[in-house]
């Protein structure tokens, strides 16, 4: 006799198999395809593609961009979450909507807006050009576009958690004599550390993997303004499939590590 809220065993089996089937077809197979294509001719060509100077330059640029974009969004996200979750002030809801805004904008538009401001015919473009500052088709533009697309990650993981935790622990710290910094350092930060780390990881994964926005502002100069995803595209368009999939495999690995770390963090938090 099975419980009234349980399906018949055969139905459970069918549903489980169907779900796993969908996941394999839809999620796992594409991932497997990346690695299969990368190692189509064995390890050696794949490794050679990664050791190529242009590929290495792309890796370096990607790391550099993430190293700037992630801390900016970390500081901004923590500040925003602190204000929104711990205080009542006019405009609080508006602020929450605005922070989520970059997620509802196409990556291409995220790049486009910076071209409209800093491009050759942009608002500030000509003025900057006279002074020898190049933003679009250069590192600053790539960094800005990356900050834009990864903007909400930290804030949106922190806000619900911090709202949930309320402010009584901070108030208790205040009545015990803690100043603002100590309150944050000893009470707030330990309570949000896992969520913070998880937000940073997601932010970082997106920052390293962003394609559309960066593609618009990059100019695609090999060895200079090519990030890893852009390098993948160039290689693919030049029919260097093994090399393209090798670099793509490296990015896929980053995604897998991020997912694994996130799963571990969720269990820790």
């Amino acid at each position, binding site marked *: 006799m099975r419980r009234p809220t349980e399906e018949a065993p055969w139905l459970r089996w069918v549903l489980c198999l169907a779900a796993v089937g969908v996941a394999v077809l839809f999620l796992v197979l594409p991932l497997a395809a990346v690695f299969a294509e990368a190692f189509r001719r064995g390890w050696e060509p794949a490794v050679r593609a990664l050791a190529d100077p242009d590929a290495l330059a792309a890796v370096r640029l990607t790391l550099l961009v993430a190293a700037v974009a992630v801390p900016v969004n970390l500081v901004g996200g923590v500040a925003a979450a602190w204000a929104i979750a711990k205080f009542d002030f006019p405009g609080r809801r508006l602020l929450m909507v605005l922070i989520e805004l970059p997620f509802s904008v196409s990556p291409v538009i995220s790049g486009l807006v910076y071209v409209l401001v800093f491009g050759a015919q942009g608002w500030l473009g000509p003025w900057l050009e006279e002074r020898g500052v190049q933003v679009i088709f250069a590192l600053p533009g790539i960094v800005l576009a990356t900050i834009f697309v990864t903007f909400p990650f930290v804030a949106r993981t922190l806000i619900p958690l911090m709202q949930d935790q309320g402010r009584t*622990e901070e*108030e208790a710290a205040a009545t*015990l004599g803690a100043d603002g910094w100590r309150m944050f350092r000893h009470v707030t930060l330990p309570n949000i550390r896992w969520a913070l780390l998880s937000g940073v990881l997601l932010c970082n994964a997106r920052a390293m993997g962003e394609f559309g926005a960066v593609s618009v502002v990059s100019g695609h100069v090999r060895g200079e303004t090519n990030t890893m995803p852009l390098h993948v595209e160039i290689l693919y368009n030049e029919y260097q499939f093994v090399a393209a999939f090798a670099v793509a495999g490296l990015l896929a690995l980053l995604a897998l590590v991020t997912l694994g770390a996130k799963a571990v963090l969720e269990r820790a938090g």
Partner: protein
Amino acid sequence: MIEVQGLHLRYGGVAALDGVNLALRAGEFVALLGASGSGKTTLLRSLAGLEFPDAGQVLIEGRDMAAVPARERGVGFVFQNYALFRHMTVFENIAFGLRIKPRRLRPGRAEIVRRVEELLALVRLPGMGGRHPDQLSGGQRQRVALARALAIEPRVLLLDEPFGALDAKVRKELRHWLRGLHDRLGLTSLFVTHDQDEALELADRVAVMRDGRVVQFDTPEALLAAPADAGVAGFLGDAVPIDCVVRDGQAWFEGLPPVAVAGVAEGKAVAFLRPVDLLVEPGAGEARVAAARQDGRGVRLTVETAGMLLEATPAPGWMPRRGEPCRVTALAARVFPA
């Protein structure tokens, strides 16, 4: 010791505090009693520097607190749900207030350990320092919260519904223990409660709050004997309000014999009758026994008269039966003009 004068605080158009005046003497144990929304927690938080009044003054030991932030007030505050730091052990929770003192005031490491051990013994949790808050029972958490608040050696202790989240048995136990602790440490304490038994049993004086004001501030005996108005009378004891008319120095009821009252203006009024004020005798009368039940404290009797159900006291030696006719006499009533 604590003085509050003309405190006003509005939350978006609603007056949470509407001119509160209150003065506590050193060493007093005072209860803030009121229904939820009466402003008692807001008042307590204003004293701790967690809320900021729009007008009025808070003085602690004669010092105006207006410009003093919470962290410099040096009052002990026990939060309603304890607000223990969940990521810290019991030891770290209690030591927090000591460890974050500016370096020149901070006790040494060994001294902190000694003080925390002392506090753990004081709240009867010796050897529990290594636990985390989620490994403690409600009563234990409450005592950790208290130890944490006491660690900074406050002269004033503020407690927000200190027993609110505990079950009845633990609550009774902790009550008397807390009172003993207060006396032993020579604290001045103010605690918020909505439980009149707790307030009347424990406090030296009780401040009854309603609609953001202190409507009466008196000893428990005085409160019970002479409630300031109908609201206070209704809030205290098990009294039920009954409409009546005052004429010729007597309150006239429907279904009950009149009761003598003094000093109440003639006209419509409301009377509060406690079970002990109503004596019921067997025999033909307007009333009937609606329910009668023996329990640990004696016979609990409910009579019906003129469509009202009233709890009352049976005459000695009589065991009422349901449906039996009876006579009700009101021995006393607190009557207020309607």
